[in-house]
């Protein structure tokens, strides 16, 4: 279970401190988005919190257009906050539409190790407002240069979600670095961690045409509309597939990863396995961990048509703090 704290509890603890009490984090990585939650983590940092480098990721498409004012404002505030807490603050201008820019920009900044040996680098990452693809890529790059246990994820849940979060999809593509290996002689298993975009689940299944769908339903459940199958399209697409349901803990990275390993175990090595993480950011990182351990697994991503910029979420409810753990580190008891 991921440690979970209310804002009051965080206050009582004195705020979020560095990973190691005696030394600053090497990196704090945040995302400046249109959501007010972009600021929640930095506002909860302990007065004593320090990091050598503050990196703020922003999707360049949001710097202008309807999201521009909010994003620029949040970016400015984050910059200001981090300037007081970090030796160096840098902005990473990524892209949610162009995966090449997304990757190369993140890689450019995250490959710099500074004066810390790469294996000892400690990173706090606020995963709250990253889009899922950038989140996966960012953490994957961090894992190339750090031990999992030295990467701490912070997630702030909202008081309330908007009526919809994102709608539609533009295309399906694999997350850069996670194309996996597909052997033509094997069938395809698609594991979908469904949650917030139920109407697009059918689309991703249709695109991949798997021989079997493992439909993951987050527990606690986030949206059961998909179960109702009130759309003919969903009904028809699912009718063409063999479908099995499973539940996964949507509020814990490591518990979810553990669950995924169990669910996918019968298929790894025997089938082409694809995971579509479409649920919480915590479960998205779980999918990343499992794919990182099993390079043959593909992570697939639906680029959404649009985001609900006006009303994505409201308020901040609870803080989840969790260090990553791979299967290897689990075994070692780290």
């Amino acid at each position, binding site marked *: 279970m991921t440690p979970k704290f209310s804002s009051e509890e965080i206050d009582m603890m004195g705020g979020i401190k560095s990973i190691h009490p005696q030394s600053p984090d090497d990196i704090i990585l945040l995302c400046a988005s249109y959501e007010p939650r972009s600021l929640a983590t930095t506002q909860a940092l302990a007065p004593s919190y320090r990091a050598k480098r503050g990196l703020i990721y922003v999707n360049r498409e949001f710097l202008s257009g309807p999201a521009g004012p909010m994003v620029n404002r949040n970016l400015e505030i984050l910059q200001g906050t981090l300037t007081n807490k970090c030796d160096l603050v840098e902005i990473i201008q990524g892209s949610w539409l162009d995966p*090449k820019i997304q990757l190369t920009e993140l*890689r450019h900044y995250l490959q710099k190790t500074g004066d810390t040996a790469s294996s000892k680098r400690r990173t706090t990452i606020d995963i709250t407002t990253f889009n899922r693809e950038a989140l996966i890529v960012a953490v994957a790059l961090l894992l190339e240069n750090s031990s999992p246990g030295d990467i701490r994820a912070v997630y702030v849940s909202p008081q309330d979600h908007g009526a919809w979060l994102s709608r539609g999809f533009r295309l399906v593509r694999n997350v850069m670095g996670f194309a996996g290996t597909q052997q033509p002689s094997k069938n395809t298993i698609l594991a979908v961690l469904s949650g917030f975009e139920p109407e697009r689940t059918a689309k991703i299944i249709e695109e991949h045409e798997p021989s079997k769908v493992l439909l993951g339903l987050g527990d606690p459940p986030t949206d059961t509309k998909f179960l109702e199958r009130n759309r003919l399209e969903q009904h028809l697409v699912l009718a063409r597939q063999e479908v099995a349901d499973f539940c996964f803990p949507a509020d814990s990275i490591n518990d979810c990863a553990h669950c995924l390993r169990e669910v996918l175990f019968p298929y790894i090595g025997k089938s082409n396995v694809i995971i579509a993480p479409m649920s919480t950011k915590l479960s998205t990182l779980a999918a990343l961990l499992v794919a990182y351990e099993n390079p043959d697994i593909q992570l697939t991503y639906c680029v959404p048509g649009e985001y609900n910029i006006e009303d994505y979420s409201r308020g901040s409810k609870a803080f989840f703090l969790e260090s990553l753990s791979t299967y290897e580190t689990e075994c070692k008891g780290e």
Partner: protein
Amino acid sequence: MVTPEDRGGSKQLMNTSCQETANTPSFLNPFAVESPEKLTPKQIVDLFVPQFTQLETVKQRRHTLIWGTRGSGKSMMLKYLEPRCQGVIHGGVARFLDLDDRFMGVYCPCKEGHLNKSEFSLLDPYAALVVNEHMLNIRIADRLISCLREQLPQDIFIPGEIEAFGREVVRLFDRVAIASSAEEASQSIDFKTNVLNWLQVLFAIENRKLSSFLKANALQGGNIGYEGATSGYHDFLLPLMRATLSFKGLKEIPIYLLLDDADKLNKEQQTIVNTWIANRDQKIFCLKISTQREAYKTFKTRDGGRIEQPHDYSQVDVDGLYTQSRSDYSQKIKLIVEKRLQLSAMPNREAESFLPPDGNEEQLFNQVKAETAEQWKKDGEPGRQRDYVYRYASARLFQLLREARRRKSYAGFQNLVHLSSGVIRDFLEPCYLMFDACVAKGDEPKDITHIPPAIQNEIIYKYSEDFLLVLFEDIRKDLPPEKWTQVEELRTLLESLGRLFYNRLHDPKSREARLFSFTVRGRVSAEMEDVLNMGVRNRYFLLRTYSTKEGGGREKWYILNRRLCPMFKLDPTGFEGRISLTPKLLAVALKNPDEFVKMRLKQPEELPQPEELPLFEKEGGTGDAEI
């Protein structure tokens, strides 16, 4: 790889469950659309209707491009060409291989995410080309070996032949580059006793090396070297095919590489395939490539040339059947339905009676036809009675139903055929839902003798609504915000046309009531062109051409997708006469349906000119007009 055996024990999770619960229906719906890859060869042969498919063109010893929308039956056709399926038809694969017109179909699906990996965009053009071609080659090689192992009777191979073949294949790679993969393959499979399996393991190892390279190049960047083998056309693919032809038991059989869903290849991969086509080595192997037309991104070859039809390839348009001859299409659907009903052992295996029209409406229609025949006499018997009745009776029916405030029934086999607008899946899928609905109402699946018209209508109206409303949402999300006005304009255009055609159909004074298409006379702006193209791409319009009265050229002709008929209360059997719009009028249609309808109705009604009139089928009544 992670396995639970490696762990000391499993973790107990609170309040979670990782158990799968099976979710497959317990009955077989005769209209279920299964992926052909899941079907056995016998099932494929049983389900596939070879008539009206241009299969003989596909079987010719030429490179062929097979165009068709999703659900039009392309994959089924390609799977049908595999040796085991041909063996089912001809009483055994060996027998088939003895025929004069034999061939060996090697099925190579191009699935989403298998070949079109995002990481290719990170490579420089040369590296991307090398890696793409090698990936394509080993995939095809794997499928070829799979075909030799699983589709052909093993006794056709002479002892020693397979080993020689295996050695030849390995020699096609650079010796040093393939050494480590060969060694790894030998650790799990003995080459001498299991050559073909060994080769597949070799290709799997090469495939994994490529994936590792792509991953490392993405996450580590820099000058990551790829140290695996590479392969091209002249140094690998062609000699591989030649080596296959040299099996005595295969008797120089033509090899057909059946590339399915080639629209899932990235542009570089399609360029590579085009280059293969351009080499025209059809004596050795032929490519049969199925794809959606608008998703095949390029016809260019690697050296900047272009492949052209018919010099480099022949083509087959699976969707074309409907536009070429609707009676043939109707026949084909009938054959498909009756095959399915038979295979599902349904008590009633006759398509027309399984999907009956609304009895009351049929009665009314017969009455209207009789009255129309009388009117023909009163009007001085203009033309043939049959033609007159055909032209006016259906419209009169719509008019009567409107007066009586009765919803038009679209039930009935022929109506459903028309509504599918040439896409087989668009016929089968509503039928699937209708059958499900019957079961949901309590009918025993094996006892169902027909789908009641009420259920047919309920589903077909919803299917039409989904097409118009829900699909629009999907299109909108596919586009950047700056293109959303185009989506709105397309929706408005459909609304405008729907209303106009509705008005014409329900106007007793209209001489040409059953219109269903339009042309634009004059030059349209680029923005209007975009909207029309969007409509074609998303199949709201079918695009054809016609020769102009003035001669010297062909104009575009947009035909409404019949799936929209229930939404706009139009006649799906409508005669494809067309109205012509000026660009100015079209511009109004994109913005304001009311204004458009008003303006267009004010114009005098134009009748299609005699030379433009399509030929009527010889069968009377609601026979289709053949264009």
